[in-house]
Structure formats: C-alpha cells, structure tokens
C-alpha cells in the first residue's frame, strides 16, 4: 500500500536535534519503501521554497516568520491557503506532525483534519504540570490532539505523559522508540585504559540538559583524578558559564569545548572517549546515550524520564540527578574501567544495533498508517460529544473560522485547478 505522507514540523534541517533526526530518518526509510514523502517546515534565513535533499526527499520551506524559539506564529488563517495548496498539490493522504512544541505541526494537522485527511502525531518531549506555561501548553495540545487519529510517543513515560496532558485515550497512543543509524555509529577499536580517561559529553548546553550539574562534576573530578579529561560537544546559552568555570579553575588543558558539532562528526568525538556522561534533567528518549553505546562507551546518566527504558541496565550506570550521586556513579565507572570490567565495544555495538533500527521504527509506523488508511472518520456519538465539549472554548471559534476560510479558498481556487506535482520518482542528487 502506497501512502502519500506529509511530515510537518518546525524543526528540520538546518536545525539539529532528536526531532530533526527522527523526521529525516523516518522519511528516508519510508521513501525506500516506495512511499511518497514530503516535509513541511518553515524557512531558515535564505532557505525558502522547495528543496530536494538526500534521495529526492522533497522539503517545503514555507515563507512563514518564526516568533518564538524556532516556532511559527500560529496565525491560523494566513498560512492556511499555502498549506492547503501543498496538501492538494501533493495529493497527501496522511499528515504526520512532529513535536508538541511545533506550532506548524499543529496548524497543518488542523487544516488536514478539516480537509478530511488522516493525521498522526509524534510527541518527542515530556512536560510537567506544575507551572502556568505548562498549563497553557497542555491545554493547546489537548485541543489539537482531540481530533487526531493516532499519537506516537518515543517512550512509555512519554505515553503516560501524553495521555495525562492531552486526555487522549491510551488505545490511540503507541510507543515507538527512536533509533540510531548504526552504520554511522560503529564501535571503537577497543576500550582500555591507556594512561588517561576521556569523558565525553555531547548535548546542547542548556539548563534542561543539566549543564549546572556538569560544571560542578567537572571541577570535582578534575581535582580528584589527574588522568581524567573532558570533551564537550555542543553549544548553547550555558556555554558562557562553562567557559568561566574552566577559566577560574585553570582546566583549559583538561576540558576541551568543541562547540557545535555536525552530526557526522559526533561519532569521531565519541570514539575518542571512554565514558559518556549525560546529565539531562528531563528526557523523553535520549538518543545521545544510544549513539554512545553503539560506539562502545561506558555510559553514566541521570535516571530521569524515559532514560531507564532505553538501554539494558548492564550497559549504563544510572544515577539520581544530583552531584554526589553522579560523581559516585562516575567513580564506579572509572574504577570498573581501570579494572578492565568493560563490555567490549563490538559486543556493545551489536546489542544496540539489534535493539534499535530505523527499519523497525518505520515498519511499526507504517502499520499505524495502514490501520488508518481505510479508517472511516465518522465517529461515535460519545467521541463527538467529547470533542465538542473540549472545543467549546475559544478553539471552537478558531476551527469554525478556519473551516469557513477553507470553504472560501475551495471556491476561490478549486482543488481541480491546482497543478498536481509530478512524481519525480527517480533519485535526485542533492546539490548542497
């Protein structure tokens, strides 16, 4: 069965991150399975219009301005004609939105639902319930997902979180983890003590990744062990405090800041290291530790969110998110490493390789697509009642207004008049 899928998200190349990785790899695998995939995202400085990337994957960089942390302003009507045009032109059957933070994903899904297309949503993040911003975001998510066909979460914690936040029935939520490309993350030659221990950290340098914890750990470990070195990849607002701490404690030759790394270079950094450290404060599914495990590093991580679900316990040292426990676990890892209690990188790589592959992720996602292809969108009375009750708030007006604009657009430029995109079919060589 061939689907015409539209992946919609604010987060895509040239941005880097877990969501971007996920969309790219999923699309590539779907393309290999003869599906037709396009990606909808907003424009980046001079990257506007249609671009073809690897294997002829068509990306629409929509000329919509971003307003807050890489998200477009959800103006509801102004981008509707454009998105509708693309959906009609590409004869899309399934719209797959990614990330709860992406307003473009929600907007596209709403338009798609009004046009009678199937919508799937993948949630990549966890969110608390305590503060005002969480209350608002969760309410928006609830409204957006009330009419979504199916949700996908990347971990079981993520599913619990999404079910609670968006009040979706748990049957409508599947857990499909992320994966990594194990052909890129090949194992290092060996992992033995050669006079020094290199601890690698690859993460955005932001508060949520626990950089404050990291700074304290670096200082304490460098004072304690002469042979420990750090390599830190990634960039972000916390870089400044990290640099300051390094300067203050004169650790310039012990701690190397590598800045923002292209994804392909991450593997080289990982291979230089012996222990991988992750200090995240919240994480739905930590791709970084899977990548590190695939390279055969010892892993020390905080026990937060979905991290305990990701890898078997014998592959990682889990710690509570505080300095003392993290240092204890790191010391355990260092001692084990010095005593040669190490799983050989090749073995490690094989375990990870068998656990997570994009092919597996794609097959499972495809199953959901197939399930909904002939799914009649007519719903039970109870469901409609539930949706209506949810939508009684202002969102109802938004949807109705959107629907009116859509009807208006349909008369103004009928679907029949829209030139259908030719199927390039052949693989196009990316010129960038």
């Amino acid at each position, binding site marked *: 069965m061939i689907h015409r899928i539209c992946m919609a998200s604010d987060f895509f190349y040239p941005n880097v991150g877990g969501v971007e990785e996920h969309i790219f790899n999923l699309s590539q695998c779907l393309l290999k399975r003869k599906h037709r995939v396009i990606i909808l995202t907003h424009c980046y400085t001079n990257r506007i219009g249609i671009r073809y990337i690897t294997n002829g994957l068509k990306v629409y960089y929509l000329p919509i301005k971003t307003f807050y942390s890489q998200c477009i302003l959800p103006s509801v009507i102004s981008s509707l004609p454009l998105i509708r045009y693309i959906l009609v032109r590409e004869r899309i059957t399934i719209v797959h939105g990614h990330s709860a933070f992406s307003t473009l994903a929600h907007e596209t899904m709403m338009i798609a639902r009004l046009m009678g297309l199937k919508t799937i949503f993948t949630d990549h993040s966890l969110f608390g*319930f305590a503060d005002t911003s969480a209350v608002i975001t969760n309410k928006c998510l609830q409204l957006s997902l009330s009419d979504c066909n199916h949700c996908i979460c990347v971990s079981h914690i993520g599913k619990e979180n999404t079910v*609670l936040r968006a009040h979706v029935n748990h049957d409508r939520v599947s857990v499909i983890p992320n994966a990594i490309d194990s052909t890129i993350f090949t194992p290092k030659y060996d992992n033995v003590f050669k006079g020094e221990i290199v601890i690698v950290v690859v993460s955005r340098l932001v508060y949520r990744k626990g950089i404050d914890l990291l700074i304290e750990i670096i200082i304490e470990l460098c004072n304690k062990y002469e042979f420990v070195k750090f390599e830190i990849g990634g960039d972000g607002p916390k870089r400044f405090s990290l640099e300051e701490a390094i300067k203050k404690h004169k650790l310039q030759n012990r701690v190397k800041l590598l800045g923002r790394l292209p994804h392909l270079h991450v593997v080289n950094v990982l291979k230089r290291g012996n222990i991988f450290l992750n200090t995240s404060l919240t994480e739905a599914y930590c791709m970084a530790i899977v990548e590190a495990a695939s390279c055969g590093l010892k892993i020390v991580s905080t026990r937060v969110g979905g991290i305990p679900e990701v890898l078997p316990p014998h592959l990682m040292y889990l710690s509570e998110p505080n300095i003392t426990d993290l240092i204890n676990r790191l010391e355990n890892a260092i001692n084990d490493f010095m005593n040669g209690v190490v799983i050989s990188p090749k073995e490690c790589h094989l375990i990870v390789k068998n656990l997570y592959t994009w092919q597996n992720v794609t097959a499972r996602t495809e199953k959901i697509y197939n399930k909904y292809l002939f799914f009649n969108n007519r719903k039970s009375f109870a469901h409609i009642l539930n949706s209506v009750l949810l939508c009684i708030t202002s969102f109802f007006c938004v949807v109705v207004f959107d629907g009116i604009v859509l009807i208006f657009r349909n008369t103004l430029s009928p679907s029949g008049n829209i030139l259908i995109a030719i199927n390039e079919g052949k693989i196009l060589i990316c010129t960038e």
Partner: protein
Amino acid sequence: MSEEKIKRKPWKKNLYENEEYPDNYTDISFLEELKKNLYIRNVTFKEACFGAGLVSQEICIVVIFACSFIYLYNEWLDPIDLIIYISMASFGAYCLLFYDNYNFLQTCRTLCCYIICSYLLSPVLKTLTETISTDTIYLTTVFMMIIHLIFFDYGVAALIVSSSLSLNAAIFGAVCLTSRLPTSISVTAFIFITVHCFALAPLFFTKIGFSFFMLILIIIATSTLLYSLSCIMTVFFLISIFFINVICPYLFIKWYSYKDNIYGPWDEAVINIPSNSI
C-alpha cells in the same frame, strides 16, 4: 485469546523487549508512578482569615489616609492640632514599643530634621502639581493606592511583593494630592499623616503583631471616621471588608479541595547547587 496471553512474557517497562505486544498496548502498571498533591499545605479557615485580615488592615489605613485628606481639604480640622495629636500618639507608641530598639537622641535628631524639611518644602509641594486638573490628580491617587495595596508586603514570599514600590506609590499618590490643599501648613500636616500611615504604621503593626481584636478595633475606628463623611461609602466599606475577610477565605478553603497537582517521573529534576564555582 486468553491462552495467547498466558504464553506471552510479562510486559516490561522498557523499549527493547515486549516484541509480542502491540505498540499501543497499555499495561496495568500504566501511570503507577503518578502522584498527586505532594506538597499540599492544609490551610484552616482561621489561617485564611488571618491572611485576609492583613489585607483589610491595609485597606483601613488607606481609607483613614483618604479621610484625613478630606478633613484637611475642607478645613474641618486645624492642621496644627492634627500635627500635635499625631505626634503625641506616635511618641507614646515609640516610648512603649520601640524605645529599646532605637537610640533616643538620634531618633530625635532625625525627627527634627524631618519636620523642618517637610515644613520648608511644603510650599514647593503645594505648587508642584497645581497645574494638573483635579480629576487627573484623584485618578492618579486612586491608581497609586491600588498599586500600593497590590504590591504591599503582607508577609507572603511571592514574586509580586515589593515594599519599596508599594511605599513609593503611596508617597507619590500623597504628593499628587497635596496641591489641592488650602494652606502650606495643611500640606505639612498631610505629609505627616502620609508618613505615619505608610512608613510608620507597618512598623507599628509588625511590632504589635496581628490580632483579630486589633483588626476589629481598626475597622470600627475607620468606619466611624468614614461615617462622618458619607453613609453610603461606609456601607460599601463594610461590605467589602466583609467580602475580603469572610467570603474570600471561605471560598479559598472550599475551592482548595479542587487542587489537583500531578507529579511523576516526567517532571524536570530540580537541582540545588551551592554556586561556588561561578
């Protein structure tokens, strides 16, 4: 179907086993780690009233301040008498409550300095906002008093609390009003009252501590004063005091049971670091 279920390995909460289960399988352990209302603090009706009492106490002070303006504006009171009575009262309060805390001579010096300054500056204050229309003046004062009430330090560690903003708003409101007063000496008296209401009264009330007896006393005094000016305003005042002191705490207690905070493993970990490194 049931046979099939028995054959399956037990479901585990991880992402790499459970191949026999469908992706949207929901285990019994679903939401097991969900916790509700972890850090809840049960507030009794008395405690709620106590908190509301502090608000109504401050409202009373603002009302007293406004009444004194009307008395001085209409020249129903001799400003010099007023200064003398207030000075006597505050001197008594000082001797009873604050004598140990502050050096007597130094306090006297500051006081003299202050009285002379305010007396000398009162003609300036009187003409400062004279050109502004009366309506604007009253409106500004009302806004400033609202700001004063909102940002006043009622003893709760909230982000919104700012004693300096609160005090400055009140003083600004008073300075606006001074230009409407008839004579310079009445301006001095009014500034005197302002300082007593907004700078010294909070000190006095924190010293003696809050009690319901004191609150009732202030409310009676305020309503008597207000009654001499307007009967309708007194009724409004009493209704609002009743609303703040009885109905609001009651609703607060009643609605507290609707509190439904959710906690779980998805919450962001809270870190507390003694920041010695940076």
